[in-house]
């Protein structure tokens, strides 16, 4: 059997992930916002006697490695060696897609163009001559329509015909495809540098990347001195990298012009423009954005509560039937584990899933990128790029996937700064603590003042970081996609992908956290561990026993409420004053929330940084809570 690895490459919003879904089934995030697929998704499928591994890549505009997303694609293309690439082109703006096609042809990778939005473009009076394009570039062009499947065979045929196996490729692909001719002086520099190129990548391609100032490609040179030599001759043209870029785009648009026929139409009515007038207005924009977010929050609390009530009573009766069994140590531990799991599932699952569903809808309609623009005005002030809105908002669901989502940001520093702010974005479990303890025993106003306190604490933290660490954040540069009717299938698929981290990592660990707590309790260790920490209780003005839920909540956040009840009895409002409940709420919710989030931080940023952040954020939270109740009781 033949094996092929084919990459799917395209701009954001071009239908890459939808194409992937049609080819191999719903296994990847589909999105109307740039930057949802940051990791590469892979799936295999067998066609005849060939096994094709398809890889979906993040939406990009060019393959140069200027952002994290582009780096992912660049790695997939050159370091892991792909056998071919399908470039999903947008018939509405062909030249833009061709820019990337030309770049990949320069790398001498077999390429197929899948032309999407053909009908949409024709409605706008743009008609593309696929045969002519095929002839010009000498690569297959397959028009696709993601609502049907008629084109799939044609596309697969094209892959099988165009992409030879790796062993045969080198000879065969010394290729006949279209090549850009650059200005004479650039061509001279290219041939000079290619003499020094080393390794399996095409020499001309390496030379071009080097001239484009991509330092990752210097390692493919035998001698880096050649760069200086080549540039010596380019003194009259100091902006070589820019010239290459311009020529490439110019060639792309020249080819696009050759194959595109534009039939002038009357001016279409633009509802989208009117909506944008409001959504991006200097006052209405931020206002509608916050209203939307508040509405989501409201729906979440309301529906989440409803579902949670049903699930809780179900699991409680289940646990009860288990609990009456014999009282061996093993069953106690088992029951503790199941309790951890059940509470986790019934509290977190409905919130998290609902939240990601609503968020996915916002994305696919096209609202999210408008919200990002509005949020950027504010985020810029605390030193964050607009895109950090995505992980921060996802943090309202669960901190673990949100930490992973910081990858949409282009530098590690920005990613870490954003991740550190997740200490102040209440996830579903922390919302449950605030609403279920503070709100339940002392009323909704006090619960909201806890939310407000989190916001203030987070702002102080963010300004502090901005003051001491200079992070150069990326300026706002974003395409605003047209508003589209969301495909429910896509939204569901996407919510599921985001949930995956939660279901496969968080939920099992919730059970483990429960078991760990159970063992410690049976061994009578909980008090012993907590005892040396009693000064913290004094600082917080809380009874020492409340440290048990505070400390062991780190193992399983959703158990915090249950633990508090078990140490204080169910009449919490008698045991604690309102100020004490408020202080407890703050101490329990500021900081990296749980051991699972810590694990994800370690995975993304390394052990040292993750531990450092977790400890600092928790100490900060405790300091903040202690100071605050002192200030409040002073008045």
């Amino acid at each position: 059997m033949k094996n092929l690895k084919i990459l799917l490459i395209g701009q954001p919003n071009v239908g890459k992930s939808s194409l992937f879904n049609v080819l191999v089934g719903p296994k990847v995030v589909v999105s109307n916002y740039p930057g949802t697929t940051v990791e590469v998704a892979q799936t295999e499928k067998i066609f005849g006697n060939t096994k094709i591994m398809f890889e979906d890549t993040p939406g990009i505009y060019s393959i140069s490695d200027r952002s994290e997303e582009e780096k992912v694609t660049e790695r997939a293309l050159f370091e892991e060696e792909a056998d071919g690439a399908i470039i999903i082109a947008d018939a509405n703006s062909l030249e833009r897609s061709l820019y990337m096609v030309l770049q990949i042809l320069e790398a001498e990778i077999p390429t197929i163009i899948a032309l999407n939005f053909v009908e949409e473009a024709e409605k706008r009076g743009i008609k593309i001559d696929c045969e002519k394009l095929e002839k010009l570039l000498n690569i297959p062009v397959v028009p696709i329509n993601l609502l049907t499947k008629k084109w799939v065979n044609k596309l697969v045929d094209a892959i099988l015909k165009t992409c030879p196996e790796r062993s045969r490729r080198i000879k065969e692909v010394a290729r006949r495809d279209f090549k850009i001719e650059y200005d004479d002086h650039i061509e001279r520099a290219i041939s000079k540098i290619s003499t020094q190129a080393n390794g399996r990548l095409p020499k001309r391609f390496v030379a071009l990347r080097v001239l484009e100032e991509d330092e990752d490609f210097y390692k493919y040179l035998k001698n880096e001195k050649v760069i200086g030599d080549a540039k010596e001759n380019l003194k009259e043209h100091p902006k070589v990298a820019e010239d290459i870029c311009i020529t490439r785009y110019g060639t792309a648009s020249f080819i696009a012009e050759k194959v595109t026929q534009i039939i002038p139409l009357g001016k279409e009515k633009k509802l989208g423009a009117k909506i944008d007038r409001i959504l991006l207005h200097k006052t209405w924009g931020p206002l509608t954005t916050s209203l939307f977010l508040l509405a989501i929050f409201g729906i979440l609390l309301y529906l989440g509560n409803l579902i949670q009530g049903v699930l809780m009573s179900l699991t409680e009766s289940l646990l009860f039937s288990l609990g009456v069994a014999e009282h061996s140590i093993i069953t106690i531990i088992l029951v503790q584990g199941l309790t951890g799991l059940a509470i986790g599932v019934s509290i977190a699952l409905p919130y998290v899933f609902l939240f990601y569903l609503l968020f996915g809808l916002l994305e696919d309609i096209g609202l999210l990128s408008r919200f990002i623009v509005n949020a950027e005005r504010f985020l810029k002030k605390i030193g964050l790029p607009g895109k950090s809105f995505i992980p921060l908002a996802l943090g309202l669901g669960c901190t673990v996937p949100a930490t992973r989502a910081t990858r949409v940001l282009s530098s590690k520093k920005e990613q870490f700064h954003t991740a550190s702010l997740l200490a102040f974005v209440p996830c579903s479990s922390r919302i449950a603590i605030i609403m279920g303890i503070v709100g339940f025993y002392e009323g909704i106003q006090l619960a909201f003042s806890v939310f407000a306190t989190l916001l203030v604490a987070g702002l102080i933290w963010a300004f502090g970081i901005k003051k001491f660490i200079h992070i150069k954040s990326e300026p706002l540069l974003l395409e605003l996609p047209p508003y589209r009717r969301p495909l429910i299938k896509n939204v569901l698929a996407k919510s599921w992908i985001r949930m995956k981290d939660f279901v496969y990592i968080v939920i099992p660990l919730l059970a483990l956290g429960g078991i760990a707590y159970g063992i410690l309790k049976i061994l009578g260790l909980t008090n012993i561990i907590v005892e040396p920490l009693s000064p913290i209780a004094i600082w917080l003005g809380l009874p020492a026993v409340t440290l048990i839920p505070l400390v062991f909540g780190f193992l399983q956040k959703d158990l915090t409420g249950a633990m508090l009840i078990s140490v204080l009895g169910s009449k919490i409002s008698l045991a604690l004053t309102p100020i004490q409940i408020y202080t407890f709420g703050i101490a329990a919710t500021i900081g990296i929330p749980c051991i699972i989030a810590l694990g994800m931080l370690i995975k993304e940023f390394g052990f040292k940084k993750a531990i450092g952040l977790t400890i600092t954020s928790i100490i900060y939270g405790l300091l903040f809570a202690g100071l605050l109740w002192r200030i409040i009781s002073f008045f």
Partner: protein
Amino acid sequence: MTKESDILKIVKEDILEVVGRKNKRTPLKFMKLEVTVSHSFVSKAIKELEEEGLIKISSEKRPWKEYIQLTKEGQVRANAIIKKHSVLEKYFFKERRSEEEAIEATNILEHYISTEVIDTIKKLSTFKKEGIPLTEFKQEEGLIANINLNIGLFERVISMGIYPGEKIRITDKIPNGIIIEIKNKKFVLDNNIAKEIKVLEYEKS
């Protein structure tokens, strides 16, 4: 304010000058890159030049290999333009301090100097080849003349389709940036990026 017919005239003379200087046939594609205005202007200019019998288009088998060649008459015209250019350049080198300024002034003036000089100099005050920063641009539509960003941002902007020579429409200005439309695609640009994108005014004839 520059009218479309003015731009067309400038583009036509620029084409003759470029081909004349190269003194050989010039790839059509190269021409489209050399002149920083919309490709449709270049196409139109080339078509008119061909109709006036000043240039010939020769193509080889492959359609992207079209060349421009000057006819005899075209060569005469091109020489005149080149001469005019060098005379002006000399004059401005004496008058102005920086080389750049001189070349810039020459590039613009050469198109007008044979007509009513004073009138055109008045026009020139609003028509700089460099263009006006997008942030200060007052019209709704313009042509992108020049983009001046570091290579990382430059390539990103270009590959998104924000390209010298394209028609740009300013849809809205918001507190943290500018919303623009290019070829039916909508973008939001930070003001710091927008101010490095230079735009030319133009008016449909």
